[in-house]
């Protein structure tokens, strides 16, 4: 008798809970918001470049230059050989915002290795642009840099580059050692690194 009562109670409980379950399911619902957020790309690449040297016409031993762009288009490696007093190196490169968001290009940071070599070189940098299409760069390695060097009014840094826009950067490096110093420095190597930093245009 007791067993029967327990069984009946148990069955009743099962029925009751199942009814409650069904009722609950019927009276709850939900709405959904689905979102996707795709982030953009912040990138600047060196699109093209020209390198050249300027030597005094009377010099028999002329300095030479070789420029090689890295595969990721982030570094231009320049080998300037046979540098002599009054030698000049010029590099003109076009950098492009190949990303999808605007960037601000800062004043370049120039470092020397060994540090003392900064006493024997003078580095000038200048920017032109930004341009919406690729500007023409002279391809005569024995000539001076483009005339625009002294005529164009360069933009103030930082320069804002929208996606697809280009900026021309010109670098001129002069070897300013005297003849005496030159003899002392013969056979040594100087590493000059120009770093161009850029960041998201609207950062505070």
């Amino acid at each position, binding site marked *: 008798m007791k067993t029967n009562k327990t069984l009946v109670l148990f069955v009743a409980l099962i029925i009751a809970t199942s009814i409650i379950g069904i009722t609950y399911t019927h009276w709850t619902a939900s*709405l959904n918001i*689905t979102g996707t957020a795709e*982030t*953009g790309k912040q990138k600047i690449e060196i699109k093209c470049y020209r390198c050249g040297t300027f030597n005094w016409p009377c010099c028999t031993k002329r300095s030479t230059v070789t420029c090689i762009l890295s595969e990721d288009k982030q570094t231009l490696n320049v080998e300037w050989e046979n540098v002599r007093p009054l030698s000049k190196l010029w590099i003109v490169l076009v950098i492009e915002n190949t990303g999808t*968001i605007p960037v601000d290009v800062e004043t370049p940071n120039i470092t020397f290795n060994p540090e003392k070599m900064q006493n024997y070189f003078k580095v000038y940098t200048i920017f032109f642009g930004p341009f919406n299409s690729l500007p023409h760069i002279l391809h005569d390695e024995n000539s001076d840099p483009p005339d625009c060097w002294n005529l164009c009014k360069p933009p103030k840094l930082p320069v804002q580059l929208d996606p697809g826009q280009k900026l021309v950067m010109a670098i001129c490096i002069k070897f300013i050692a005297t003849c005496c110093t030159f003899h002392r420095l013969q056979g040594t190597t100087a590493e000059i690194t120009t770093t161009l930093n850029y960041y998201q245009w609207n950062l505070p």
Partner: protein
Amino acid sequence: MKEKTLALAIVILITTSVAGVVYAHWTGQIQIRVTAHIGSLTIRFINPLKWSDNEATKDVGHINCYYTQPDPTEGYKKLIIEISNAYPNYAAHCNFTLKNIGTAISTIVNVTISDPNGELKWKWTTKYTKGFLWKDFNKNNAYNPGEEIIYITITDLVNLEFEPRQVEKAQIEAQITENAEECHSYGLEVSIAYES
């Protein structure tokens, strides 16, 4: 005697048949028809739906919001938010409208936010209104500062009672943090649970 018995039988027969007719004439039926309309519990997205972002000068990031899965009665079942070309500090918000198209009073009981792809995890900073999706960059199964990816702010809807035909406006805002990765797609899903 036999005739008497027959006559009595005929009389009884006639009487009972007449009585039957009379009975049939004096009975009827009363019906109570009850139609039970079960209350419906349905909240849907309706127009207006508006969206904008925090860009004042340049149009770089983009946001698009739209409804899908139309309800045969009224409104839509789903709100889609698409953000593209986002960058750190880009914030986009979507102003949507909710309506109780059912017949029962409904109450919003919970809001949950998650990443359907499982890449990001959710953390409330202010329950049901503010929080962020974060990525376990250092794989320690715990949130650490610097792991926030998208801040989400949503109108406080929990415990809001919806009378039938009541309309409520709400807003959801997503802000990309500086920890977000470049060229990456993040997903999020907001589920608004309601009951009667």
